[in-house]
């Protein structure tokens, strides 16, 4: 009882809001909602065909289910390596002949 009343009062905030033509428009299906429904009904259904998916690194690490934080870590590691190489070489230069 309590849960349902809370749920009703917070209904506008809690995510699962299912948009039916009736809920979105005020009574009946307006022409605008109908056109939206028509637009979406014409779109292709199901997952993208294999031939249209991007391949390569992007397909492997960024798209759909493959999206992961791996590129993030790789970027950090590459920049760390670059920074270390630069730092090492700059200091090596400074100390090479025993004086600055």
């Amino acid at each position: 009882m309590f849960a349902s009343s809370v749920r009703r009062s917070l209904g506008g905030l809690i995510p699962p809001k299912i948009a039916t033509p009736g809920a979105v428009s005020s009574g009946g299906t307006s022409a605008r909602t109908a056109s939206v429904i028509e637009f979406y009904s014409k779109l292709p259904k199901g997952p993208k065909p294999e031939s249209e998916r991007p391949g390569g690194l992007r397909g492997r690490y960024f798209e759909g289910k493959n999206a992961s934080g791996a590129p993030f870590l790789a970027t950090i590691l590459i920049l760390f390596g670059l920074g270390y190489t630069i730092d090492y070489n700059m200091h090596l230069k400074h100390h090479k002949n025993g004086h600055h």
Partner: protein
Amino acid sequence: MINNNFFINSPLEQFEVTPFIKFNAPILGDFNLSLTNLGLYALITVFLVLGLHIVANNSHSLIPSKWSIALESAYASIHAMVRDQIGPNNEIYTPFIYSLFFFVVIANLNGNIPYGFTVTTSIMVAIGLSVMIFLGVTVLGLSIHGVHFFAYFIPSGTPLGLVPLLVLIELISYLARAVSLGVRLFANMVAGHTLLKILSTFLAQLFTASILVAVVTLIPFAVFVALIGLEIAVSLIQAYVFCVLTCSYIKDAIELH
């Protein structure tokens, strides 16, 4: 030859701009082109920002990838910020604020990677950006309001006797914006990076002292890790604050109070 910086341990040394490649070109008088670590890291930042937006693009799918959703959320946040600060009629400035935010935030986060260089700890970059924004905002205000723009310096309802004093105060506070915006970003980044450098040098010495000391050092090391987290938060917050203030300056130029 005795040199006092034979063992370079200064925590401020990380902010030094050093050229990798020097190139003296006899064009335009004496023209010196050099690729410094500042230039390299600025290029890396631009590359990362562009690369992120290319690779995390929605690619015409109805359901975006997680990377794409992250970018959409960033866009939505900045769009909301521009709407709140400059007003819904001036959403034309969203791309400017968006690119400003991404440049500053990626530059700041890039600087948190050890051995890296933070572009925004260079006073030239930070102050240069803020002076550029300040001059741009002034030009914008002058072009919209003309001479009436100077009414900005006289608060409404001022008695005539106080006008010279108030104009002086308002003018100084207006001019201070050019510096304060950049100094805020620069000082926060420099302070955090210096602190981390000092602490990490100290902790490294403790860790290599003896096994017992190294075990005990794990406690301050935990604090150090927390400070790294704080530094990442500062990177994000400073980029956000920079953009919010840029928005409010643009709003002031458009609306004159």
